[in-house]
């Protein structure tokens, strides 16, 4: 049973990949119906899915993918034109595949009533056949020509053959034609190769062995250059005996020895190439799939290792050997950490790829014209973070399409381009990954937003008066706020933005919104590169040691009390012409301050941190040292302590709390 589970997991992982490939390819096909390569990739993906589901005995899924594959085959052979109808039909099919896979996940069966859809597909294919009978013949003609064409050789290859062939050898160009309905063409082709190698020396082939391994073999002809001393008839016989080989065409080629003798060095090189060719086998894939749980465990253990290393350092043993070992240990731990982090990284594109389809469907549904741009697909992020980001980004993009972008007529009235623009970007900035969702739609109506916040008693009138524009905008992340009057089935139910913010926060990230009325909205999400281990500055606040993640810190300073100025009754300092508010970290942590006000101290340590999009100065008792910390989350019963994001173990084995400065201002 556990074996079966393993296969099932593989099946799920792979089918998800194929679904993504299919979605992506259909979108491409819609924009570019003539692109044969896209058609081929669609065909391949459907074909592979079919194979997998047949192996797993999911008959309904097998039939569905088989029909889709057939449809793609007709498109490929120009029997059917790619129309909007076909595209919609294909999308519908992919949706069914997704549904079925989901169902297999829940109850292990693929019982699904597809009759109606399959009939639609069948009808479409029948129509296609009737419409394009003439062009069908054209294709056959083309194919015949392709079948009879032999492999061409370049000069270097000709020289190579001429120099290496023995006196009795003949150079043959052999084309083996496979029966049209051949199953497992790749395997048949490899059988042809195997047989050919027994007859003589297989110099070159189209497709070559690697292409076959990668399943890039789509037509019915295996072409070879074969050097052998066997007569033609024998070759035709042996190859023709292979099942599914219906025809063997053979021509001998005269190859003149090129008199312009190459240097000996070149000869050597050619010989080497030869050896490489004759020994090249079907390569084994050099990647493995590993469950994220295993990587989590590995990361945890590295965390433990790191903690112990820090503790070892703190022992400060005075011995030669100890001092040698420590840097070594340090290097190995760091490298280990780095490597595991690398393994966990994946390009964010794997998740972004699902959005073009969604935006397309949404814009069609709401009759809007939208140009959807994705940038920075290659940006890499921890896999576990990527998994969590799907839902929040879905929500933000839906908002952008549903609430942001206006209908073409409205846009025209406003003097905007009829087609709206929604952009999804990812890029790295320092030790953070930034993801932006931007649209050039109507923007957020601040008055409406604040009125609603007042109405729902999320803020008081007094609080509102003290808020600046930026703070008012961030109100959108409060629970229960949604400014649309009408509720559509995609967004506008008032749950969402607060959930988005909560998810991002739980990933130790931050979210921030900017919006100009009539110009559009820009949402910026910042995320840590990795979750588990971070660089931190250790500080003393009151009598306790706290860690502040380095990525939140812009600088540290020492200030004298006379440098502190007052603005509206608040303490500030002026740093390079910027006014920065000061905050007593003890107050933020609810530590009794008593009479011990910082103003009375002569010199103070200040950590300038980025908080809610601006900089504030955090006054601490003492700056200690910088350290790599392993972040441990607080258990549930301690959870959600204000301004504390977790805990870590420091050198002396004590626990230090990690300051969450993002909302401290």
């Amino acid at each position, binding site marked *: 049973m556990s074996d079966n589970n393993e296969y099932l997991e593989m099946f799920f992982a792979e089918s998800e990949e194929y679904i993504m490939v299919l979605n992506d390819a259909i979108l491409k096909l819609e924009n570019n119906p003539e692109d044969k390569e896209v058609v081929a990739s669609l065909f391949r993906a459907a074909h*592979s899915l*079919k*194979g*997998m589901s*047949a*192996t797993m005995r999911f008959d309904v899924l*097998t039939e569905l993918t088989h029909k889709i594959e057939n449809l793609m085959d007709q498109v490929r052979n120009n029997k059917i034109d790619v129309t909007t109808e076909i595209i919609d039909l294909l999308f519908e099919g992919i949706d069914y595949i997704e549904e079925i896979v989901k169902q297999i996940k829940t109850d292990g069966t693929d019982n699904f009533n597809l009759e109606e859809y399959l009939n639609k597909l069948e009808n479409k294919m029948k129509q296609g056949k009737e419409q394009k009978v003439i062009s069908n013949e054209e294709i056959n003609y083309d194919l015949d020509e392709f079948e009879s064409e032999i492999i061409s050789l370049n000069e270097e290859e000709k020289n190579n053959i001429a120099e290496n062939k023995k006196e009795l050898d003949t150079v043959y160009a052999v084309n083996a034609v496979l029966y049209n309905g051949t*199953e*497992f063409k*790749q*395997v048949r082709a*490899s*059988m042809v190769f*195997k047989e050919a190698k027994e007859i003589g020396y297989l110099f070159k082939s189209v497709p070559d062995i690697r292409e*076959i*391994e990668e*399943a890039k073999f789509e037509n019915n002809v295996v072409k070879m250059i074969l050097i052998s001393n066997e007569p033609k008839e024998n070759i035709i016989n042996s190859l023709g*005996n*292979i*099942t599914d080989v219906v025809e063997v065409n053979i021509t001998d080629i005269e190859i003149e020895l090129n008199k312009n003798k190459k240097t000996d060095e070149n000869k050597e090189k050619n010989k080497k190439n030869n050896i490489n060719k004759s020994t090249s*086998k*079907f390569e084994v894939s050099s990647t493995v799939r590993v469950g994220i749980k295993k990587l989590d465990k590995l990361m945890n253990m590295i965390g433990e290792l790191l903690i112990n290393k820090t503790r070892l350092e703190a022992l400060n043993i005075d011995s030669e050997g100890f001092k040698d070992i420590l840097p070594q240990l340090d290097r190995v731990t760091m490298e280990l950490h780095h490597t595991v982090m690398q393994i966990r990284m994946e390009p964010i594109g794997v998740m972004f790829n699902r959005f073009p389809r969604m935006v397309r469907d949404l814009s069609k549904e709401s009759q809007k014209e939208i140009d959807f741009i994705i940038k920075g697909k290659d940006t890499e992020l921890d896999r576990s973070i990527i998994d969590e980001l799907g839902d929040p980004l879905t929500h933000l993009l839906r908002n952008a399409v549903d609430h942001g972008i206006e209908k073409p007529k409205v846009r025209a009235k406003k003097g905007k381009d009829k087609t709206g623009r929604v952009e999804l970007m990812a890029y790295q900035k320092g030790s953070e990954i930034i993801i932006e969702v931007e649209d050039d739609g109507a923007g957020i109506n601040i008055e409406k937003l604040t009125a609603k916040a007042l109405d729902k008693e999320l803020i008081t009138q007094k609080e509102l008066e003290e808020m600046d524009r930026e703070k008012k905008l961030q109100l959108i992340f409060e629970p229960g706020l949604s400014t649309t009057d009408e509720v559509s089935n995609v967004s506008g139910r008032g749950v969402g933005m607060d959930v988005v913010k909560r998810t991002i926060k739980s990933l130790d990230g931050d979210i921030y919104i900017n919006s100009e009325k009539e110009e559009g909205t820009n949402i910026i999400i910042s995320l840590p590169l990795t979750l588990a281990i971070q660089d931190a500055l250790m500080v003393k606040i009151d009598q306790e040691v706290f860690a502040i993640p380095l990525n939140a810190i812009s600088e540290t300073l020492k200030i004298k009390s006379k440098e502190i100025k007052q603005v509206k009754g608040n303490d500030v300092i002026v740093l390079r012409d910027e006014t920065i508010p000061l905050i007593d970290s003890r107050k933020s942590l609810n530590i009794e301050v008593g009479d011990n006000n910082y103003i009375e101290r002569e010199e103070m340590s200040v950590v300038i941190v980025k908080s809610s999009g601006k900089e504030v100065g955090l006054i601490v008792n003492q700056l200690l040292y910088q350290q790599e910390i392993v972040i441990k989350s607080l258990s549930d019963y301690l959870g959600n302590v204000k301004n504390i994001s977790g805990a870590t173990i420091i050198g002396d084995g004590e626990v230090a709390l990690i300051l969450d400065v993002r909302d401290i201002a």
Partner: protein
Amino acid sequence: MPEMDGIEAVKKIMAFDSDAKIILCSAMGQQTLVIEAIEACAKDFIVKLFKKDRIKEAIDNIL
């Protein structure tokens, strides 16, 4: 199948009798495995679900 996989079986049979003629029965989606078996000297293969004439053809071809 129990105890060993098809490829191993092909290898063992070939070691026992190098003149053995082996036809593999395979399900869809196992092309790479079949290629491996062919490398290990299986003579031919058929794909499930089989049709009578395909089986006959394969047997005719290797005898």
